[in-house]
Protein backbone atom coordinates (compact mmCIF):
# COMPACT_ATOMS: atom_id res chain seq x y z
CA UNK A 1 0.00 0.00 0.00
CA UNK A 2 2.01 2.97 -1.23
CA UNK A 3 0.62 6.44 -1.53
CA UNK A 4 1.34 9.65 -3.44
CA UNK A 5 0.59 13.21 -2.32
CA UNK A 6 1.01 16.46 -4.21
CA UNK A 7 1.22 17.99 -0.76
CA UNK A 8 2.11 16.03 2.36
CA UNK A 9 1.53 17.72 5.71
CA UNK A 10 3.04 16.27 8.87
CA UNK A 11 1.00 17.31 11.90
CA UNK A 12 -2.72 18.05 12.19
CA UNK A 13 -2.63 20.81 14.79
CA UNK A 14 -3.63 24.41 14.02
CA UNK A 15 -0.77 24.93 11.52
CA UNK A 16 -1.35 21.66 9.67
CA UNK A 17 -5.12 22.17 9.53
CA UNK A 18 -4.71 25.74 8.24
CA UNK A 19 -2.17 24.59 5.64
CA UNK A 20 -4.46 21.85 4.34
CA UNK A 21 -7.47 24.19 4.17
CA UNK A 22 -5.47 26.90 2.38
CA UNK A 23 -4.16 24.45 -0.22
CA UNK A 24 -7.36 22.41 -0.72
CA UNK A 25 -9.23 24.70 -3.18
CA UNK A 26 -6.31 24.30 -5.63
CA UNK A 27 -7.42 20.70 -6.10
CA UNK A 28 -4.04 19.33 -4.98
CA UNK A 29 -4.04 15.81 -3.62
CA UNK A 30 -3.32 16.44 0.07
CA UNK A 31 -2.31 13.91 2.70
CA UNK A 32 -2.10 14.96 6.36
CA UNK A 33 -0.50 12.73 9.01
CA UNK A 34 -0.72 12.98 12.78
CA UNK A 35 0.29 10.60 15.55
CA UNK A 36 -2.70 11.49 17.75
CA UNK A 37 -6.13 9.87 17.46
CA UNK A 38 -7.82 13.15 16.41
CA UNK A 39 -6.92 16.32 14.50
CA UNK A 40 -6.40 19.47 16.57
CA UNK A 41 -2.88 19.16 17.95
CA UNK A 42 -2.17 19.64 21.63
CA UNK A 43 -4.15 22.86 22.04
CA UNK A 44 -7.37 21.40 20.62
CA UNK A 45 -6.93 17.88 21.96
CA UNK A 46 -10.28 16.10 21.93
CA UNK A 47 -11.43 13.54 24.48
CA UNK A 48 -14.22 12.63 26.90
CA UNK A 49 -13.32 15.55 29.21
CA UNK A 50 -12.32 18.09 26.54
CA UNK A 51 -14.48 20.98 25.42
CA UNK A 52 -13.33 22.06 21.98
CA UNK A 53 -13.74 25.73 21.05
CA UNK A 54 -16.08 26.47 18.13
CA UNK A 55 -13.12 27.46 15.93
CA UNK A 56 -11.53 24.02 16.34
CA UNK A 57 -14.79 22.22 15.54
CA UNK A 58 -15.30 24.37 12.44
CA UNK A 59 -11.80 23.69 11.17
CA UNK A 60 -12.33 19.95 11.67
CA UNK A 61 -15.63 20.04 9.80
CA UNK A 62 -14.08 22.02 6.94
CA UNK A 63 -11.25 19.48 6.66
CA UNK A 64 -13.76 16.68 6.34
CA UNK A 65 -15.68 18.56 3.64
CA UNK A 66 -12.73 18.48 1.22
CA UNK A 67 -12.57 15.22 -0.70
CA UNK A 68 -8.96 15.93 -1.70
CA UNK A 69 -7.68 15.98 1.91
CA UNK A 70 -6.85 12.59 3.39
CA UNK A 71 -6.10 12.55 7.11
CA UNK A 72 -4.23 9.60 8.58
CA UNK A 73 -4.56 9.75 12.38
CA UNK A 74 -2.48 7.66 14.76
CA UNK A 75 0.32 7.61 12.17
CA UNK A 76 4.02 8.26 12.75
CA UNK A 77 6.95 8.95 10.45
CA UNK A 78 9.52 6.18 10.80
CA UNK A 79 12.14 6.92 8.13
CA UNK A 80 12.95 8.88 4.96
CA UNK A 81 14.21 6.12 2.67
CA UNK A 82 14.48 8.12 -0.56
CA UNK A 83 14.15 11.65 -1.95
CA UNK A 84 10.66 13.01 -1.26
CA UNK A 85 9.54 9.78 0.32
CA UNK A 86 8.64 8.87 3.90
CA UNK A 87 8.04 5.54 5.59
CA UNK A 88 5.09 5.77 7.99
CA UNK A 89 3.28 3.43 10.40
CA UNK A 90 -0.14 3.31 12.06
CA UNK A 91 -1.61 0.74 14.47
CA UNK A 92 -1.99 -1.82 11.72
CA UNK A 93 0.20 -1.05 8.72
CA UNK A 94 3.44 0.43 7.49
CA UNK A 95 3.64 2.12 4.07
CA UNK A 96 5.57 4.57 1.92
CA UNK A 97 4.29 8.02 0.98
CA UNK A 98 5.90 9.88 -1.93
CA UNK A 99 5.30 13.61 -2.19
CA UNK A 100 5.95 16.63 -4.35
CA UNK A 101 5.71 19.28 -1.61
CA UNK A 102 6.07 18.80 2.14
CA UNK A 103 4.96 21.03 5.03
CA UNK A 104 6.22 20.14 8.48
CA UNK A 105 3.80 21.19 11.25
CA UNK A 106 5.35 19.02 13.92
CA UNK A 107 4.55 21.38 16.78
CA UNK A 108 6.32 21.71 20.07
CA UNK A 109 6.77 19.66 23.18
CA UNK A 110 7.25 20.63 26.80
CA UNK A 111 10.71 21.21 28.17
CA UNK A 112 10.91 18.74 31.05
CA UNK A 113 13.89 19.32 33.33
CA UNK A 114 15.25 16.75 35.78
CA UNK A 115 14.89 17.39 39.52
CA UNK A 116 15.02 14.93 42.43
CA UNK A 117 11.87 12.78 42.37
CA UNK A 118 10.71 13.71 38.85
CA UNK A 119 10.45 10.04 37.88
CA UNK A 120 7.84 9.29 40.57
CA UNK A 121 4.37 8.31 39.35
CA UNK A 122 2.18 11.37 39.94
CA UNK A 123 4.67 13.76 38.33
CA UNK A 124 3.73 14.82 34.79
CA UNK A 125 4.35 17.69 32.43
CA UNK A 126 2.13 20.75 32.93
CA UNK A 127 0.59 20.44 29.49
CA UNK A 128 0.92 16.70 30.08
CA UNK A 129 -1.55 16.79 32.97
CA UNK A 130 -3.96 18.89 30.92
CA UNK A 131 -3.75 16.41 28.02
CA UNK A 132 -4.32 13.45 30.37
CA UNK A 133 -7.36 15.11 31.97
CA UNK A 134 -8.87 15.88 28.56
CA UNK A 135 -8.41 12.24 27.59
CA UNK A 136 -10.32 11.03 30.64
CA UNK A 137 -8.00 11.08 33.68
CA UNK A 138 -9.90 11.77 36.90
CA UNK A 139 -8.35 14.38 39.23
CA UNK A 140 -11.46 14.89 41.33
CA UNK A 141 -10.56 15.72 44.96
CA UNK A 142 -6.84 15.44 44.21
CA UNK A 143 -4.33 18.01 45.48
CA UNK A 144 -2.33 19.35 42.55
CA UNK A 145 0.77 21.54 42.39
CA UNK A 146 1.60 23.08 39.01
CA UNK A 147 5.11 24.33 38.37
CA UNK A 148 7.49 25.45 35.66
CA UNK A 149 7.02 28.38 33.34
CA UNK A 150 4.72 30.08 30.88
CA UNK A 151 1.00 30.64 30.36
CA UNK A 152 0.41 26.90 29.96
CA UNK A 153 0.64 26.61 33.76
CA UNK A 154 -2.52 28.71 34.14
CA UNK A 155 -4.33 26.80 31.41
CA UNK A 156 -3.41 23.49 33.02
CA UNK A 157 -4.55 24.77 36.44
CA UNK A 158 -7.87 25.88 34.94
CA UNK A 159 -8.47 22.43 33.43
CA UNK A 160 -7.54 20.66 36.69
CA UNK A 161 -9.81 22.94 38.78
CA UNK A 162 -12.69 22.53 36.35
CA UNK A 163 -12.42 18.75 36.83
CA UNK A 164 -12.56 18.85 40.60
CA UNK A 165 -8.90 19.09 41.62
CA UNK A 166 -7.71 21.39 44.34
CA UNK A 167 -4.80 23.38 42.88
CA UNK A 168 -2.59 24.25 45.86
CA UNK A 169 0.04 26.29 44.07
CA UNK A 170 1.04 27.48 40.61
CA UNK A 171 4.79 28.03 40.74
CA UNK A 172 6.09 30.25 37.92
CA UNK A 173 9.87 30.45 37.79
CA UNK A 174 9.94 33.86 36.06
CA UNK A 175 10.19 36.90 38.33
CA UNK A 176 7.17 38.98 39.28
CA UNK A 177 8.72 41.89 37.33
CA UNK A 178 8.86 39.78 34.13
CA UNK A 179 5.35 38.42 34.53
CA UNK A 180 3.91 41.86 35.36
CA UNK A 181 5.74 43.36 32.36
CA UNK A 182 4.21 40.73 30.11
CA UNK A 183 0.73 41.23 31.57
CA UNK A 184 1.04 45.00 30.98
CA UNK A 185 1.56 44.35 27.25
CA UNK A 186 -1.48 42.06 26.93
CA UNK A 187 -4.01 44.79 25.99
CA UNK A 188 -2.21 44.88 22.59
CA UNK A 189 -3.88 41.50 21.93
CA UNK A 190 -7.40 42.00 23.37
CA UNK A 191 -8.49 38.37 23.06
CA UNK A 192 -5.47 37.25 25.08
CA UNK A 193 -6.03 40.04 27.57
CA UNK A 194 -9.61 38.90 28.18
CA UNK A 195 -8.53 35.26 28.39
CA UNK A 196 -5.98 36.17 31.06
CA UNK A 197 -8.79 37.25 33.42
CA UNK A 198 -10.53 33.89 33.13
CA UNK A 199 -7.27 32.11 33.93
CA UNK A 200 -6.32 34.27 36.94
CA UNK A 201 -5.66 32.12 40.00
CA UNK A 202 -4.97 33.28 43.56
CA UNK A 203 -2.49 30.45 44.12
CA UNK A 204 -0.17 31.78 41.40
CA UNK A 205 3.34 32.71 42.62
CA UNK A 206 6.05 34.21 40.43
CA UNK A 207 9.72 33.74 41.31
CA UNK A 208 8.92 30.20 42.50
CA UNK A 209 10.29 26.89 41.30
CA UNK A 210 10.31 23.24 42.21
CA UNK A 211 13.30 21.87 44.17
CA UNK A 212 12.23 18.25 44.60
CA UNK A 213 9.32 15.84 44.52
CA UNK A 214 9.18 13.20 47.24
CA UNK A 215 7.34 9.98 47.97
CA UNK A 216 8.12 6.27 48.14
CA UNK A 217 6.13 4.48 45.43
CA UNK A 218 4.39 7.55 44.13
CA UNK A 219 4.33 11.29 44.69
CA UNK A 220 3.49 12.42 48.21
CA UNK A 221 4.68 16.02 48.19
CA UNK A 222 6.87 18.72 46.69
CA UNK A 223 9.48 21.13 47.92
CA UNK A 224 9.44 24.56 46.31
CA UNK A 225 11.67 27.57 46.45
CA UNK A 226 9.07 30.30 46.76
CA UNK A 227 10.39 33.85 46.47
CA UNK A 228 13.51 32.98 48.47
CA UNK A 229 11.82 30.73 51.07
CA UNK A 230 11.61 26.93 51.06
CA UNK A 231 8.04 25.64 51.17
CA UNK A 232 6.81 22.02 51.36
CA UNK A 233 3.36 20.97 50.21
CA UNK A 234 1.74 17.53 50.41
CA UNK A 235 0.05 16.72 47.12
CA UNK A 236 -1.16 13.92 44.83
CA UNK A 237 0.09 15.36 41.56
CA UNK A 238 2.84 17.66 40.40
CA UNK A 239 2.49 18.98 36.86
CA UNK A 240 5.77 20.57 35.86
CA UNK A 241 6.82 21.96 32.47
CA UNK A 242 9.34 24.69 31.66
CA UNK A 243 7.83 26.09 28.48
CA UNK A 244 7.67 24.69 24.98
CA UNK A 245 10.43 23.67 22.60
CA UNK A 246 10.01 23.12 18.85
CA UNK A 247 9.89 19.55 17.51
CA UNK A 248 12.62 19.77 14.88
CA UNK A 249 13.88 16.16 14.74
CA UNK A 250 12.21 15.28 11.46
CA UNK A 251 13.12 18.61 9.84
CA UNK A 252 16.72 18.21 10.98
CA UNK A 253 16.84 14.69 9.51
CA UNK A 254 15.42 15.99 6.20
CA UNK A 255 18.15 18.62 5.96
CA UNK A 256 16.20 21.72 7.02
CA UNK A 257 18.41 24.52 8.33
CA UNK A 258 18.00 25.25 12.04
CA UNK A 259 17.90 28.72 13.56
CA UNK A 260 18.17 28.87 17.33
CA UNK A 261 16.16 25.82 18.43
CA UNK A 262 13.65 25.99 15.57
CA UNK A 263 13.35 25.17 11.86
CA UNK A 264 14.45 28.16 9.77
CA UNK A 265 11.91 29.44 7.23
CA UNK A 266 11.59 32.48 4.95
CA UNK A 267 8.57 34.81 4.48
CA UNK A 268 6.80 32.08 2.47
CA UNK A 269 7.37 29.54 5.29
CA UNK A 270 9.79 27.80 2.90
CA UNK A 271 12.90 26.10 4.26
CA UNK A 272 16.35 26.08 2.66
CA UNK A 273 15.30 22.88 0.82
CA UNK A 274 13.24 23.36 -2.36
CA UNK A 275 9.57 22.24 -2.00
CA UNK A 276 9.99 21.78 1.76
CA UNK A 277 8.10 24.11 4.10
CA UNK A 278 7.41 24.40 7.83
CA UNK A 279 4.78 26.21 9.90
CA UNK A 280 3.60 26.53 13.47
CA UNK A 281 5.49 25.80 16.66
CA UNK A 282 8.26 23.79 14.97
CA UNK A 283 9.45 27.14 13.56
CA UNK A 284 9.37 28.73 17.02
CA UNK A 285 6.87 28.86 19.86
CA UNK A 286 4.08 31.36 19.28
CA UNK A 287 0.64 29.96 20.09
CA UNK A 288 -2.26 28.79 17.94
CA UNK A 289 -3.06 32.17 16.31
CA UNK A 290 0.47 32.44 14.92
CA UNK A 291 0.38 28.77 13.88
CA UNK A 292 -2.88 29.30 11.96
CA UNK A 293 -1.40 32.26 10.04
CA UNK A 294 1.86 30.44 9.30
CA UNK A 295 -0.01 27.31 8.24
CA UNK A 296 -2.18 29.28 5.81
CA UNK A 297 0.89 30.97 4.32
CA UNK A 298 2.66 27.63 3.92
CA UNK A 299 -0.42 26.00 2.36
CA UNK A 300 -0.92 28.79 -0.19
CA UNK A 301 2.82 28.98 -0.96
CA UNK A 302 3.09 25.24 -1.51
CA UNK A 303 0.42 25.35 -4.24
CA UNK A 304 1.89 28.49 -5.84
CA UNK A 305 -0.70 31.02 -4.58
CA UNK A 306 1.72 33.80 -3.77
CA UNK A 307 -0.82 36.63 -3.45
CA UNK A 308 -3.10 34.67 -1.16
CA UNK A 309 -0.12 33.79 1.01
CA UNK A 310 0.90 37.45 1.19
CA UNK A 311 -2.53 38.45 2.53
CA UNK A 312 -1.74 36.53 5.72
CA UNK A 313 1.49 38.39 6.42
CA UNK A 314 -0.01 41.17 8.61
CA UNK A 315 -1.76 38.61 10.80
CA UNK A 316 1.44 36.62 11.18
CA UNK A 317 3.36 39.79 12.13
CA UNK A 318 0.77 40.69 14.77
CA UNK A 319 0.97 37.30 16.50
CA UNK A 320 4.74 37.13 16.11
CA UNK A 321 4.79 40.23 18.32
CA UNK A 322 2.83 38.35 20.97
CA UNK A 323 5.21 35.39 20.71
CA UNK A 324 8.22 37.66 21.15
CA UNK A 325 6.76 39.27 24.27
CA UNK A 326 5.96 35.85 25.68
CA UNK A 327 9.38 34.36 25.04
CA UNK A 328 11.10 37.35 26.58
CA UNK A 329 8.97 37.32 29.75
CA UNK A 330 9.39 33.63 30.51
CA UNK A 331 13.16 33.25 29.97
CA UNK A 332 14.43 30.47 32.24
CA UNK A 333 16.29 31.33 35.44
CA UNK A 334 19.86 29.89 35.43
CA UNK A 335 19.12 28.47 38.93
CA UNK A 336 17.07 25.78 37.20
CA UNK A 337 20.30 24.26 35.88
CA UNK A 338 21.21 23.16 39.41
CA UNK A 339 18.06 21.23 40.37
CA UNK A 340 19.43 17.77 39.52
CA UNK A 341 21.55 16.01 42.17
CA UNK A 342 24.31 13.52 41.23
CA UNK A 343 21.88 10.57 41.53
CA UNK A 344 18.94 12.29 39.76
CA UNK A 345 18.10 10.40 36.57
CA UNK A 346 18.45 12.61 33.50
CA UNK A 347 17.69 9.96 30.86
CA UNK A 348 14.47 8.23 31.95
CA UNK A 349 14.62 5.62 29.20
CA UNK A 350 18.04 4.24 30.12
CA UNK A 351 18.05 5.44 33.78
CA UNK A 352 21.24 7.47 33.45
CA UNK A 353 22.01 9.73 36.44
CA UNK A 354 23.32 13.29 36.25
CA UNK A 355 26.71 12.19 37.68
CA UNK A 356 27.32 9.95 34.64
CA UNK A 357 27.09 12.96 32.32
CA UNK A 358 29.04 15.73 34.04
CA UNK A 359 32.46 14.34 33.07
CA UNK A 360 31.72 14.59 29.32
CA UNK A 361 32.25 17.57 27.06
CA UNK A 362 29.50 17.03 24.51
CA UNK A 363 26.29 15.12 23.74
CA UNK A 364 27.96 12.56 21.50
CA UNK A 365 30.62 11.62 24.04
CA UNK A 366 28.01 11.39 26.81
CA UNK A 367 25.75 9.23 24.64
CA UNK A 368 28.50 6.81 23.64
CA UNK A 369 29.80 6.40 27.18
CA UNK A 370 26.50 6.27 29.05
CA UNK A 371 23.66 5.43 26.59
CA UNK A 372 21.97 8.70 27.62
CA UNK A 373 19.47 9.58 24.89
CA UNK A 374 19.64 6.19 23.21
CA UNK A 375 16.42 4.74 24.60
CA UNK A 376 12.87 4.64 23.33
CA UNK A 377 12.26 8.41 23.25
CA UNK A 378 15.52 8.90 21.33
CA UNK A 379 16.60 11.82 23.46
CA UNK A 380 13.45 13.88 22.94
CA UNK A 381 13.23 14.42 26.70
CA UNK A 382 16.83 14.22 27.93
CA UNK A 383 18.33 15.76 24.77
CA UNK A 384 16.41 18.96 25.41
CA UNK A 385 17.28 18.75 29.11
CA UNK A 386 21.04 18.43 28.52
CA UNK A 387 20.88 21.24 25.97
CA UNK A 388 19.52 23.40 28.77
CA UNK A 389 21.81 21.99 31.50
CA UNK A 390 25.11 21.78 29.64
CA UNK A 391 24.54 23.68 26.38
CA UNK A 392 25.10 20.51 24.32
CA UNK A 393 23.58 20.58 20.83
CA UNK A 394 21.69 17.33 20.16
CA UNK A 395 22.78 15.61 16.95
CA UNK A 396 20.28 14.95 14.14
CA UNK A 397 18.09 11.89 14.76
CA UNK A 398 18.56 8.82 12.66
CA UNK A 399 15.81 6.47 11.48
CA UNK A 400 13.77 4.85 12.86
CA UNK A 401 12.54 8.17 14.33
CA UNK A 402 10.07 6.28 16.52
CA UNK A 403 10.04 2.68 17.72
CA UNK A 404 8.66 0.71 14.74
CA UNK A 405 7.52 -2.80 13.92
CA UNK A 406 9.75 -5.08 11.84
CA UNK A 407 6.96 -5.49 9.27
CA UNK A 408 7.01 -1.71 8.74
CA UNK A 409 10.77 -1.68 8.20
CA UNK A 410 10.33 -4.51 5.69
CA UNK A 411 8.43 -2.07 3.42
CA UNK A 412 11.87 -0.64 2.69
CA UNK A 413 12.67 -3.79 0.69
CA UNK A 414 10.56 -2.36 -2.13
CA UNK A 415 12.72 0.73 -2.34
CA UNK A 416 15.44 0.97 -4.96
CA UNK A 417 18.83 1.73 -3.39
CA UNK A 418 19.27 5.48 -2.88
Amino acid at each position, binding site marked *: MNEYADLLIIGAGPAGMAAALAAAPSGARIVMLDDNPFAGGQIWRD*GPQASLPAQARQLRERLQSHANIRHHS*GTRVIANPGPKQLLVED*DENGWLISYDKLILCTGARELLLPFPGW*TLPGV*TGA*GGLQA*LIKSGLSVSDERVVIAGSGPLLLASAATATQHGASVLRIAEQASLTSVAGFAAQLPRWPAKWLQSFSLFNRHYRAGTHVLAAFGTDRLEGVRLQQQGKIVELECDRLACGFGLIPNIQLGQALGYAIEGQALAVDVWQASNRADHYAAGECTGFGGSELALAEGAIAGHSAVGEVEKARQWWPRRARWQGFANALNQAFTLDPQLKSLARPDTLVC*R*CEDIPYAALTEHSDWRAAKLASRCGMGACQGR*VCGAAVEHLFGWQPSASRPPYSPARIETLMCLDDTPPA
Partner: protein
Amino acid sequence: MPELMLDGHALTVADGTSVAAALALGGNGCSRTSVSGQRRAPLCGMGICQECRVTIDGRRRLACQTVCRDGMQVETQP
Protein backbone atom coordinates in the same frame (compact mmCIF):
# COMPACT_ATOMS: atom_id res chain seq x y z
CA MET B 1 -18.81 2.51 26.85
CA PRO B 2 -15.88 0.21 26.01
CA GLU B 3 -14.92 -2.56 28.43
CA LEU B 4 -11.27 -3.52 28.45
CA MET B 5 -9.01 -5.80 30.47
CA LEU B 6 -6.26 -4.04 32.42
CA ASP B 7 -3.70 -6.49 33.82
CA GLY B 8 -6.43 -9.14 33.94
CA HIS B 9 -9.10 -6.94 35.57
CA ALA B 10 -12.19 -5.78 33.69
CA LEU B 11 -12.70 -2.03 33.44
CA THR B 12 -15.41 0.05 31.76
CA VAL B 13 -14.55 3.58 30.69
CA ALA B 14 -16.28 6.51 28.94
CA ASP B 15 -16.13 6.61 25.14
CA GLY B 16 -12.96 8.28 23.88
CA THR B 17 -10.94 7.64 27.06
CA SER B 18 -7.24 7.11 26.41
CA VAL B 19 -5.49 4.02 27.71
CA ALA B 20 -3.24 6.38 29.73
CA ALA B 21 -6.30 7.69 31.59
CA ALA B 22 -7.64 4.13 31.98
CA LEU B 23 -4.41 3.08 33.75
CA ALA B 24 -5.31 5.48 36.57
CA LEU B 25 -9.06 4.81 36.47
CA GLY B 26 -8.58 1.05 36.86
CA GLY B 27 -5.22 0.72 38.61
CA ASN B 28 -2.45 2.74 40.21
CA GLY B 29 -1.73 4.69 37.01
CA CYS B 30 1.60 2.99 36.28
CA SER B 31 2.49 1.90 32.77
CA ARG B 32 5.88 0.20 32.89
CA THR B 33 8.96 -0.72 34.91
CA SER B 34 12.20 1.12 34.09
CA VAL B 35 15.54 -0.58 33.39
CA SER B 36 16.57 -0.04 37.04
CA GLY B 37 13.26 -1.37 38.36
CA GLN B 38 11.29 1.82 39.08
CA ARG B 39 7.58 1.87 38.27
CA ARG B 40 6.71 4.69 35.90
CA ALA B 41 3.55 6.45 34.78
CA PRO B 42 2.63 8.65 31.79
CA LEU B 43 4.68 11.86 31.84
CA CYS B 44 4.27 14.05 28.76
CA GLY B 45 0.73 13.00 27.81
CA MET B 46 1.43 13.76 24.16
CA GLY B 47 3.37 10.93 22.54
CA ILE B 48 6.92 12.16 23.14
CA CYS B 49 8.41 10.59 26.25
CA GLN B 50 7.51 6.90 25.73
CA GLU B 51 7.00 6.45 29.50
CA CYS B 52 3.42 5.31 28.93
CA ARG B 53 4.28 2.40 26.68
CA VAL B 54 2.21 -0.67 27.47
CA THR B 55 1.35 -3.91 25.73
CA ILE B 56 -2.04 -3.71 24.00
CA ASP B 57 -3.29 -6.90 22.36
CA GLY B 58 0.30 -8.13 22.19
CA ARG B 59 1.77 -4.98 20.63
CA ARG B 60 3.76 -2.24 22.31
CA ARG B 61 1.78 0.99 22.08
CA LEU B 62 1.73 4.43 23.66
CA ALA B 63 -1.14 4.56 26.15
CA CYS B 64 -1.56 8.34 25.80
CA GLN B 65 -2.19 8.12 22.04
CA THR B 66 -4.41 5.05 22.10
CA VAL B 67 -8.17 5.29 22.62
CA CYS B 68 -9.78 2.47 24.66
CA ARG B 69 -11.74 -0.04 22.58
CA ASP B 70 -14.06 -2.82 23.61
CA GLY B 71 -12.23 -6.07 24.34
CA MET B 72 -8.75 -4.52 24.46
CA GLN B 73 -6.17 -6.39 26.55
CA VAL B 74 -3.78 -3.96 28.26
CA GLU B 75 -0.72 -5.15 30.18
CA THR B 76 1.59 -2.92 32.20
CA GLN B 77 3.98 -5.54 33.51
CA PRO B 78 7.22 -6.27 31.62
